[in-house]
């Protein structure tokens, strides 16, 4: 535990520049990951109900 905390301190918290950039890039990465996970759940939960699920029927029909 002390080793992890010490490593965390030395690598991130020691210099303010590193700490600040870690905060911003962490927020950026979290947002992307969270959005993707939520979209995945959303599309699974609404399988076959959304426009993107039925779109191919009508686009194909028009090209024939």
């Amino acid at each position, binding site marked *: 535990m002390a080793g992890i905390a010490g490593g965390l301190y030395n690598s991130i918290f020691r210099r303010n520049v590193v700490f600040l950039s870690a905060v911003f890039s962490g927020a950026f990465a979290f947002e992307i990951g*969270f*959005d993707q996970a*939520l*979209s995945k759940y*959303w599309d699974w*939960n*609404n399988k076959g*109900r*959304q*426009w993107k*699920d*039925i*779109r191919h029927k*009508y*686009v194909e029909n*028009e090209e024939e």
Partner: protein
Amino acid sequence: MLARSVLRSARMAGNARSSLARTATRSTTSSSIDAASEAAASPFRLTVAGTATTALALGSMAWYYHLYGPTLYAMTPQEEGLHPTKYPWEHEKFTKTFDHQTLRRGFQVYREVCSSCHSLNRIPWRSLVGSSHTVDEMKAMAEENEYDTEPNDEGEIEKRPGKLSDYIPAPYKNDEAARAANNGALPPDLSLMVKARHGGCNYIFSLLTGYPEEPPPGATVAPGLNFNPYFPGTGIAMARVLYDGLVEYEDSTPATTSQMAKDVVEFLNWSAEPEMDQRKKMGIATVVITSALLALSIWVKRYKWVPIKTRKIVYNPPIRGNPGDRSSAGH
């Protein structure tokens, strides 16, 4: 009367005297309080007073309930209309989108049936693109209609085919024309109808499917009106329009009355809140993030308060005693 009250006072005096005597005898056992209350308790007067106050209390409660208790209805049940049945709409669930195949069928029902009388003023052709139709389908539908152009160099307003940015045209030029064509009744605009009526989807579905074969015995239907128990007042100018097989769905869904009603109701819910899918998705994201933040803040609060909650305040009184003792103890 006077004699009786005199008698009673004499009896009370007798009571008092006897109780006084009892007090005297029992004063050694220090139960004089019991004796005093027995002295005040003339059973007949107590009964009368208790009965009277109880009757007063009950009577005032009954009077208050009579004044303010019962619910008053401004309208008779017939004028309110029958309450619509609650149906388990899938798209009304917390995490469910509209079924866009249903929206496509519902728009077909609106276009082929409802749009001959009802406008959909707030929906432009473009908003159906990417929701239930492709761009090319919507362009073709928009071009079937004519719209006014901007004034040209001579100030004349000409006609042009519709574009995606145009709004779905209304069946009548204005409300007066709509009334004139419909026996004085105005077919309301359907854009926000699901939000505009109590019961929303349930009400419209019940209304569309709730026309009986003939009005029940005893019901009076004004000339030019139709009987529908779900419509407030039960007399509705719109006749039943949805019959089995009225439209032919392109996805070969059987076009029963209830199927068409369900499709068009869900379509009208979409037209009232086209942002619903996105709104629900954002709502879930918000709930997840804020509940994580709430848990975090509760943890931080407990962490910070631990020293305050677990501290123990002890008071050590100063040592008292003979100064001589303390000085000898000091040495």
